[in-house]
């Protein structure tokens, strides 16, 4: 293994082990609200000295291993072991106490999990896997996690207790979040793509459109919600019929409008950049052979611009998934509901229950787009 790769491995494995050494693997609390006692990874109850030693060995292996494939395998094995330790530890702790007690994941767990995941991702990137293979590779750990959740292995962890207690809220939040993202994305695409084309076809329009979208992009999201409340509220008052469609000063409608406005710039700007990146010779040749402007756009310009346009949509989707959390502030629903409710109740596990699915959605969307971008860029580089 090359020296930079080894240094990178050190950067991941070091903090992972350091986190576990200094911070607790689990937090044990007598009930949901009181402060907790940290349980270190090697503790007699809830921890395991053998498992900790094995985990350390696996993490050190990622530094010493000569091949990236082995590094990837070691990092994934360490992640699995970490998950097992958390589930097992929670069960052991809960076996001795009342049902009001809570066991949540501690700082050591999160740091170790994050850095081991980074180590795995780094190794996968250095192998140079195509996006489709990366997706297939990710399916393994995801399936393992799903299986563990299904069989109730993690049921003693407080985050799943929270899930159990808030199942309806969680499902509504998931549906609400997806509605926000798709609701913003569809109009943003319908408006942003033609705007991008207009920027390309007409420089005078570009001089207006791009600066306006830039201003929209830099408006803070809370301010944007506030700005939209007034006109949308007025609209709903003047035409009460619109309320049946969810239009109003608060709720999902202003959130979706705001998210769509934020989505416009990356879509329009990348559409413009992609179209202007098509070499002039190709346009000239196409027109010279008798392709009409519409055919030239559909058969030559758009396909050649597609990787850049998809990159813009990818940015938009990931951005919207994250930003949609804020919509809960104005009653827009989504995972933000869980986050803000958790903050209000000082229940960190509820916050996590809202945050983790957002991260998972963003990663999934980003991987899917990577695969699409790779597929559309074929031929040119061949």
């Amino acid at each position: 293994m090359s020296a930079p790769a080894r240094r990178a491995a050190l950067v991941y494995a070091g903090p992972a082990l350091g986190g576990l050494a200094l911070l607790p693997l689990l937090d044990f609390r007598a009930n949901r609200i009181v402060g907790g006692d940290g349980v270190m990874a090697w503790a007699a109850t809830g921890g395991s000295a053998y498992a900790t030693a094995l985990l350390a060995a696996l993490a050190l292996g990622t530094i010493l291993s000569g091949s990236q494939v082995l590094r990837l395998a070691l990092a994934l094995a360490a992640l699995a072991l970490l998950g097992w330790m958390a589930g097992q530890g929670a069960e052991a702790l809960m076996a001795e106490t009342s049902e009001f007690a809570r066991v949540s994941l501690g700082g050591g767990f999160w740091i170790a999990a994050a850095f081991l995941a980074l180590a795995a991702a780094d190794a996968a990137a250095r192998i140079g896997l195509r996006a489709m293979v990366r997706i297939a590779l990710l399916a393994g750990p995801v399936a393992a996690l799903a299986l563990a959740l299904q069989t109730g292995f993690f049921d003693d962890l407080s985050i799943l207790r929270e899930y159990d207690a808030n199942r309806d809220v969680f499902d509504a939040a998931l549906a609400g979040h997806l509605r926000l993202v798709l609701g913003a994305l569809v109009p943003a695409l319908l408006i942003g793509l033609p705007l991008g084309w207009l920027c390309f076809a007409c420089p005078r329009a570009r001089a207006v459109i791009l600066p306006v979208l830039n201003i929209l992009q830099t408006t803070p999201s809370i301010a944007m919600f506030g700005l939209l409340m007034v006109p949308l509220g007025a609209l709903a008052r003047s035409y009460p019929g619109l309320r049946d469609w969810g239009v109003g000063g608060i709720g999902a409608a202003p959130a979706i409008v705001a998210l769509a406005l934020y989505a416009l710039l990356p879509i329009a700007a990348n559409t413009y950049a992609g179209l202007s990146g098509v070499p002039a010779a190709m346009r000239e040749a196409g027109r010279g052979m008798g392709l009409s402007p519409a055919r030239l756009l559909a058969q030559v310009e758009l396909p050649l611009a597609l990787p850049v346009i998809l990159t813009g949509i990818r940015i938009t989707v990931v951005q919207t998934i994250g930003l949609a959390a804020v919509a809960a502030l104005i009653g827009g629903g989504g995972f933000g509901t869980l986050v803000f409710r958790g903050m209000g109740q000082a229940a960190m596990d509820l916050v996590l229950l809202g945050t983790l699915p957002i991260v998972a959605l963003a990663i999934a969307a980003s991987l899917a787009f990577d695969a699409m971008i790779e597929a559309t860029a074929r031929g040119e580089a061949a």
Partner: protein
Amino acid sequence: MKGAMIRVEALTRRFGDAVAVDAIGFEVARGEVLALVGTSGCGKSTTLRMINRLIEPDKGRVEIAGRDAREMAPDALRRGIGYVIQGVGLFPHWTVARNISTVPRLLGWDRSRIAARVDELLELFGFDPAEAGPKYPAALSGGQQQRIGVARAMAAEPEILLMDEPFGALDPVTRARLQDEFTAIRRRSGLTAIIVTHDMDEAFRLADRIAVMDAGRILQIDTPERLLRGPREGFVRQFVGLDDRALRILSLHRVRELARPAPDAPAPAQWVAPDDTLREAASRLIWEGGEALAVVEADRVTGEIRAEDIWRVGTRGAA
């Protein structure tokens, strides 16, 4: 000229205040190749692009095979005229075969006819259809891409080819090979062509007639030999280059034109072929220091060519 394939009359185009093309007129006969030469910005490309209406003229008219180009829909007009540009402009997301089939597809040819035509063209330009057809343009060399560009322009069997610096971006060896290849193909297919170039040598190699342009006007339009023997004063004289005009005239003639009979014999060490140019024969004579060279075909002497005959061709006043 009756039955001109392309006829241009008083064609004018302004860009802002600048006159790019100033009331020019010329005709190209069926099967003839005309070269438009001049420095950058002389209006030669603009003239070419007005013929297939990529640029609309301000004044004047273009006739294609006797029909006014304005009466035809621009896209339909362009589908009937092959167009080759310097950057080649092959579509990188399409295979070579798909690129060549662009215009036939637009014209709605059926699949089998398109496939047959693509294979025929690939063979004509020295490719193996099964091997080259499925490749993407990025996998080809510059010379190969330029060949495919010409093949694509010829795909729908147009009678006219417009070429803008078609071989400009190639190295000299590849360029010369493609020029010879193109000359052979256009002779066989009877194509009418207009070639825009700033390279006088390319014009001499490819064209039957040459139009020298400057500042939007045609200063002189003539056969290569007449242009060399009688260039107008000023720009034409300067652009054509008179230092080596005798040698250039020799390069326009072939050995077979001057070959005298000679007794049959095996080929000697030094000889020329009937299709070599007089320039090549002259060079060999100077190098060898002789008075005559054997003309050899298929390893047998079929005639001889004499230095005095060659010199006479390159002399002022000869024709």
